[in-house]
């Protein structure tokens, strides 16, 4: 069964994949910082969607679709169009390359993020394991 993106069920499955990942548990063992992912409306999807993902010491503490980027407190905000997120979830765009080419925008302590490249890679591996479905 696939999980429709972008929905609450999808982000909860993403969280389940992260919590099942030994490499993420190892690489994120010191990480403290919650994220809000902003999926901006574009020609492929009409509505902007917000996901909260709480990450603490290698585990997801909470994951949910939220109403706005102000609905929960977070230290990191990653913003990109629906199409950019879709390409990332399908493994067609490396999110680090996406940040470097400004397809994604990041707000938060970059210095801290740069110290966890392996965690970032493992999060990508987790997202690739979510069987995702996209609206036509």
């Amino acid at each position, binding site marked *: 069964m696939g999980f429709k993106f972008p929905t609450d069920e999808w982000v909860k499955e993403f969280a389940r994949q992260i919590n099942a990942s030994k490499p993420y548990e190892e*690489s994120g063992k010191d990480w403290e910082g919650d994220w809000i992912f902003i999926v901006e409306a574009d020609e492929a999807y009409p509505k902007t969607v917000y996901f909260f993902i709480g990450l603490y010491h290698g585990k997801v503490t909470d994951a949910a679709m939220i109403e706005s980027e102000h609905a929960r407190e977070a230290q990191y905000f990653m913003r990109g169009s629906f199409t950019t997120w879709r390409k990332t979830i399908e493994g067609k765009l490396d999110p680090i*390359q996406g940040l470097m080419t400004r397809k994604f925008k990041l707000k938060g302590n*970059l*210095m801290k993020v*740069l110290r966890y490249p*392996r965690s970032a890679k493992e999060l990508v591996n987790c997202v690739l394991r979510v069987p995702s479905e996209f609206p036509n």
Partner: protein
Amino acid sequence: MWNFVSPRIVFGESALDALDELQGQRALIVTDITIVRIGVVEKVKTHLQKAGIEVHIFDKVEPDPSVQTARQGAEMAQDVQPDWIIGLGGGSPIDAAKAIWILYERPDIEPAAIGPVGELGLRKKARLITIPTTSGTGAEVTWGIVLTDTAEKRKMGLGHPENIADIAIVDPEMASGMPPRLTADTGLDALVHAVEGYTCTWHTDLTDGLCLHAIRLVFEYLPRAVEDGQDMEAREKMHNAATCAGLGFGNAMASMAHAMGHSLGGAFHVPHGRAVALFLPYSIEFFAPQAPERFAELANFLGFSNDGGEKAARALANHIRDLCRKVGNPTNVAEVGIARKAYEEQLDKLVDDALNDTQMVTAIRTPSVEETRRLFLYAYDGRAVDF
């Protein structure tokens, strides 16, 4: 979507003459004391004076430059207010020059936060020229910066595409004074850049050709340059190989040998090229069972093996070890002269630093903590990787 960034590259015999036509008021040369002592700074200064440029020198860059050195250089830049910053030397002075330039233009930035995201807004006060005096780092054409956090004994991979040099001057005469050991270490660094640039997950059509040609040049000319430093054909080919490899991996990425080499270098001060070259065959052997194709292509291109698959990848690894031996470089950590006890005491840190190195992101197979530990132990003993 991706970018290919490059400075204007002036290369070949007498390339340094390009400085005679430079437009500007003041230059700050960032270098090290050895480059001053052997008279290279004076040569560059003479050219700049022909262009009517006032010259200031910051010669305090150490091997594996620290964050503190970068800050010190930036303070001098604030005093001097140069419109050109010139990185002159091996990778350390050139990387330091990049960091000094950024901190001069953006004193609000923490050095450890110089990352490839967002805008830096450089070139409001100065521009950057790079002049390599070694043939290997490729730092003259890359935007990467390696600074060492001396408190944590950790090398940090930093940089932003904006901090690419405006002009790289690749004059083989500048490298003609290198002693054989430095020639070997830096030349092997170029080989690792090219192999990893060709095989990392970020390689592209625009970088592949540069990497392939650089690898061929290193195998052909490095032994000659080490054997006879006055062989100017070999010197020039190696200088060009380093720049080609720099453009190749700088617009793709490096990979696991760099991550492990940075980790070893941070803990034991092993010269960069020696460290990364040592780990390259082990990393190829680790990748070979799951993703041998790109390595097999290299083996075929170089005429080492047309068997394809894992067998060809392993043949490549062994030919790289042979080249290391030929130029007098170690092929295992024990040969570097690090005592096993000291190495094992640092093993947790070596593993942790390697796994958290930015270059690990583009490895085609990511090792677990346990696999990384085994890789370091196999590389100590010189055992071919079999897992």
